[in-house]
């Protein structure tokens, strides 16, 4: 008798009773035992869910063969071995799953099932055979293969258009052709002031200065705007702006939890990754390298010894959100790999591969095998020093940013060694995943229900059935090389769409991290391909892509739509135009994001500290750019969340724009805003000696345009009512900062 029974008096009693009744009823055969005791039990308590029709967990308890075959979690029973039988474990409620889920069976019933398994699962022949052909094979249909985003990039000729005079670049042909087909026409060109304000915010996240406005208005050369774009792209503020867009996508945070701020379980070195991202944008690091460094920078050799930047770049993999201190270390490791599969697939591929963690993707042709083939790469990588004690979270890996010889020298000299949070080869040391290896499919996402081993490889729909097995370490470098192949159908499309999105407020694909079936199809598929090909051909230059987009008439449109050309008559439109601006027949008006709003407040007050980089700043009052303010996952009480800054716990591909009263309260009453209003007032008062000229200056400084006569009138009236000049200007300056015009870019 198993030890289990010996320890429990209740159990022993039940077994004895059962044995007694078994004997007394004179059930001569095991089959009769089945019919009298087991079958009624199965029917009453099990087969409702585990019958022939849509069985839960793929498990049918309708025949001996079906029991032996089992479900998703493997065989339900091993004949003769109750203790090794999942069925028995489940009804004993020892561990999950606990069955039946609503109520534990009585001890007697459990003893019956145990006995039945012990007897070898007798089940009279006539009552059934394994009818269960389980649909295990995952197949990609032709329709799925033909899905638009999996097709190779097509070289397309920009279409012909009627209004050729409007066209400034090839982009415009794609846009105009679609508008003309619907009887629509593009908006008028934006005026120079509007265009400059728009481009300056777009590329640097700051308003243009009065001097910059003046210079652009005076410059009548045809390439005046192109030179503005070059100036903005060369500004260090550009990397700070576009770096932040990237940080949204990669769930960047400066700290996991305020309680462990800067400790060994925290990502205390995250700021180095942030600075690397900013610099990568500023030096126009080609996107293929940018991508490669983040996935496998530690494996890219560098001529000068260790690849410091490459190690820092792998912070991308380390800054994940996987719930900290889980006692279940095996689950922790699968959660980390899942976070990495998720961020890599959504960010670079525009695919939601994490959906296939527990089951084949319901909408896209991605199987659990595809998932675990990719996950194997990340199971063979570690970002933790070790898994940590069961009672606490794991310590983060801290990689010295020095050649090992120097580390010793630093230690001797007691110099602080610079470290990075990043990724290294091999699963977490000391864990079951140490080293590099393939992993088994985790049935229903559970590490304790393992299916077949899958070799590390890339998703079949994109990389085909026949793939060279990965033998080169974890496979991260192979992954990066595969993603950056010039003929990859997704990588370039996804990235140019993101760039477009940040210039227009919406992408050509409006679900920027989902190019799958449930995503939106592109409004301009040919334009998307054309841009993607330009991107690859330019050597993956992001700055070139900005130039290309900003030089188009499409970008330079006003945000005011033109009425349709031939309203009701035209078949393509019924006079309603294009209210959602799906065709980009005007610029979308956009509200300043949290960072741009705070940075602008500081910029116009003259207090903005342009120091770049370094550890994050915790004090909100420090006038550094908002990018450098500390984000802590456990703290969502501050300014950022109030103004829809990215939630640092998950990849954010598009920020929500909410308009709520607490935002207004912030601008009305927060000491930070009042301090900026004060500094702004001083600046305005110093600019001139009379209020009319001061109003002119204030409008140029804040909105990039002079005030109208009516606005001057309103302002002078207010100042008069306010009485004392400086106080009046503080109050009025704040009104101007609160106005819609300050927060929106046309």
């Amino acid at each position, binding site marked *: 008798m198993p030890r*289990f029974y010996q*320890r429990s008096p209740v159990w022993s009693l039940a077994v004895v009773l059962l044995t007694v009744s078994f004997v007394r009823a004179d059930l001569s055969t095991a089959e009769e035992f089945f019919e009298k005791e087991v079958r009624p039990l199965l029917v009453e308590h099990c087969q409702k869910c585990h019958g022939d029709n849509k069985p839960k967990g793929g498990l049918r308890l309708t025949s001996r063969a079906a029991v032996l075959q089992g479900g998703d979690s493997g065989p339900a029973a091993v004949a003769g071995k109750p203790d090794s039988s999942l069925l028995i474990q489940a009804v004993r*409620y*020892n*561990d999950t799953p606990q069955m039946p889920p*609503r*109520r*534990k069976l009585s001890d007697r019933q459990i003893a019956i099932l145990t006995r039945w398994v012990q007897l070898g699962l007798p089940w009279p022949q006539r009552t059934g055979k394994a009818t269960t052909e389980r649909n295990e094979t995952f197949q990609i249909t032709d329709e799925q293969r033909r899905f638009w985003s999996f097709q190779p990039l097509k070289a397309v000729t920009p279409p012909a258009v009627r209004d050729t005079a409007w066209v400034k670049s090839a982009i415009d042909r794609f846009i105009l052709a679609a508008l003309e087909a619907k009887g629509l026409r593009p908006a008028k060109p934006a005026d120079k002031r509007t265009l400059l304000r728009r481009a300056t915010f777009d590329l640097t996240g700051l308003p243009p200065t009065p001097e910059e406005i003046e210079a652009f208005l005076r410059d009548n050369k045809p390439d005046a705007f192109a030179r503005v774009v070059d100036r903005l792209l060369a500004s260090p503020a550009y990397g700070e702006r576009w770096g932040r867009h990237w940080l949204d996508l990669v769930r960047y945070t400066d700290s996991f939890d*305020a*309680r462990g701020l800067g400790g060994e379980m925290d990502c205390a070195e995250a700021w180095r990754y942030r600075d690397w991202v900013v610099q990568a944008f500023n030096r126009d690091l080609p996107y293929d390298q940018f991508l490669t460094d983040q996935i496998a920078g530690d494996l890219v050799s560098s001529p000068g010894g260790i690849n410091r930047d490459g190690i820092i770049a792998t912070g991308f993999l380390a800054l994940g*959100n*996987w*719930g*900290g*201190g*889980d*006692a279940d270390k095996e689950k922790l490791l699968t959660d980390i790999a899942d976070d990495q599969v998720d961020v890599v697939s959504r960010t670079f591929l525009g695919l939601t591969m994490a*959906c296939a963690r527990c089951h084949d993707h319901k909408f896209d042709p991605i199987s659990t095998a595809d998932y675990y083939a990719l996950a194997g790469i990340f199971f063979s990588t570690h970002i933790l020093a070790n898994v940590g004690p*069961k009672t606490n*979270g794991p310590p983060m890996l801290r990689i010295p940013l020095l050649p090992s010889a120097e580390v010793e020298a630093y230690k001797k000299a007691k110099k602080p060694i610079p470290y990075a949070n990043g990724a290294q080869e091999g699963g977490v040391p000391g864990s079951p995943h140490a080293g590099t290896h393939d992993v088994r499919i985790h049935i229903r996402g559970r590490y*304790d229900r393992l299916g077949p081993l899958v070799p590390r490889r890339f998703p079949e729909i994109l990389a085909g059935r026949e793939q060279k097995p990965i033998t080169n370490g974890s496979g991260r470098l192979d992954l990066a090389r595969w993603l950056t192949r010039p003929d990859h159908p997704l990588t370039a499309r996804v990235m140019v769409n993101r760039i477009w999105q940040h210039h227009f407020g919406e992408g050509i694909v409006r679900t920027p991290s*989902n190019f*799958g079936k*449930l995503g939106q199809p592109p409004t301009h598929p040919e334009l998307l391909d054309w841009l993607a090909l330009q991107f690859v051909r330019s050597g993956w230059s992001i700055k070139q892509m900005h130039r290309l987009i900003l030089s188009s008439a499409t970008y330079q449109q006003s945000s*005011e*739509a033109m009425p349709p050309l031939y309203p009701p008559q035209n078949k393509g439109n019924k006079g309603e135009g294009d209210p959602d601006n799906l065709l980009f027949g005007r610029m979308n*008006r956009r*509200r300043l994001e949290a960072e741009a709003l705070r940075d602008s407040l500081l910029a116009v007050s003259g207090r903005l500290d342009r120091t770049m980089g370094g550890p994050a700043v915790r004090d909100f009052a420090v006038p550094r750019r908002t990018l450098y303010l500390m984000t*802590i*996952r*456990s703290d*969502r009480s501050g300014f950022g*969340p*109030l103004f*829809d800054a990215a*939630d640092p*716990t998950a990849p954010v591909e598009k920020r*929500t*724009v*909410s*308009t*709520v*009263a*607490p935002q*207004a*309260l*912030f601008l*009305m*009453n*927060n000491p930070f805003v*009042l301090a900026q209003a004060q500094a702004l007032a001083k600046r305005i008062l110093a600019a001139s000696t009379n209020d009319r000229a001061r109003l002119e200056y204030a409008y140029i400084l804040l909105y990039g345009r002079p005030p109208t006569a009516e606005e001057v009138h309103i302002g002078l009236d*207010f100042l008069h009512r306010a009485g004392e000049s400086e106080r009046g200007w503080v*109050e*009025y300056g704040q*009104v101007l900062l*609160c*106005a*819609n015009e300050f927060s*929106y870019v*046309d």
Partner: protein
Amino acid sequence: MREPIWTINRRQMLRQFANGFGMLGLAGLLADEARASSAADNPLAVKAPHYPAKAKRLIFLFMSGGPSHVDTFDPKPRLQRDNGKPLPFEQPKLVRTRTVNLLQSPFKFQKHGQSGIEVSELFPHIARCIDDICVIRSMVADNINHNGACLQMNTGEQAFSRPSLGSWLLYGLGSENQSLPGFVVISPAQPAQGAPLWSSSFLPAAYQGTLVADLNNPINNLKNPQFSHERQKDQLDTLRRLNDLHRQKRQQDSQLNARIASFELAFRMQRHAPEAFDLSGESPATQRLYGLHEKTTEIFGKQCLLARRLVERGVRCVQVYHTQTARRSSCQLWDQHGGLRTELPANCAATDRPIAGLLYDLKARGLLEDTIVLWGGEFGRTPTAEGNDGREHHPFGFTMWLAGAGIKGGLVYGATDEFGWHAVENKVHVHDLHATLLHLMGLHHERLTYRHAGRDYRLTDVHGKVVRDILA
């Protein structure tokens, strides 16, 4: 506490509490306003539920750290009998540290009310309300540590970022008071994990919970430190004129309108919101009811009283975390790895009277008819001893309770085995609890979805069953 005011109805209450009327009038006005504004302009506008519901509001009393079930609401005579003996069956693989010997509860249980439900001597006041309470003794969760378990209890997911229960409620129903945040979290200290517990995650940020950590300064930016009310009024009038000019020069744009409206609302909010958070207007009797007069109960009493004031004003969801007592502040107050005989009674003493006071007060004001009160933590504690005066984390079977709108009072639902280890009867998983709460609020947990990252997400993921047996 003994006066028979249980029978007071809403109208009588209005007569009795003079300040109540003005407040309800205002709440009504603001609710009308919320209904009038459309969801396009205002994410917090009131939305119709999927079906008519009894419950409109939720108060979730969260005993941070994992309160012991076998010492509070789940008596186990067998533990008494087998005290010191080893647990007679295998423990699940997923235990945090192995605890071996059974530990009897040092506290006595007694039957209470007409229902005769047994409650520990640690909760004498709550025990008196037991006939309004449905005790679920068969809760099950999946995570063994605070972070993951707190996350699951609040969002349904153990590791990744998902919208919280309160955010889903706000997304599904909007808020009945546009001058106050629709989802308020009152927690003097940070509970495990912090903000992800009340995060809106991928839902719009407007649905995130607003944390009130400092009861003396509950909401930021409500008062201008420099300008007089008159000057600020002038500022806002002028702002309106400038915004109108700006708008006139542009085509119709709802976001510009919405932002103009937000300033006007903000101006009203700074007049009305402080009143909602001001407990000084409460009568001495009410303050006593919540235990504000005693040091032990003062902090949590204030939290509970504030919760009542907020739900009374139409706030959709209030979460009250017990994270501070007069003696200490901790994210895991109820984490009795040790100190079972001292710390657990201290926690109960700090919360018993305030919670009973809350139930009593809600009932007296007629608010319990459409408010759900939920009590519990992220998990229970092992029936086995850790050291000689403690218990380990225990998600395999534990207790939570509900009272109020749509709930059968005086009911015990589900059971753990005779040791209090496994839930064995009518198990209620966290997902089931969530499905039930949404159901009570008029929302179908499978229909309340949000499209994100390629699929429709739900609070209950692919799980959850409404526990119909506890519905009135």
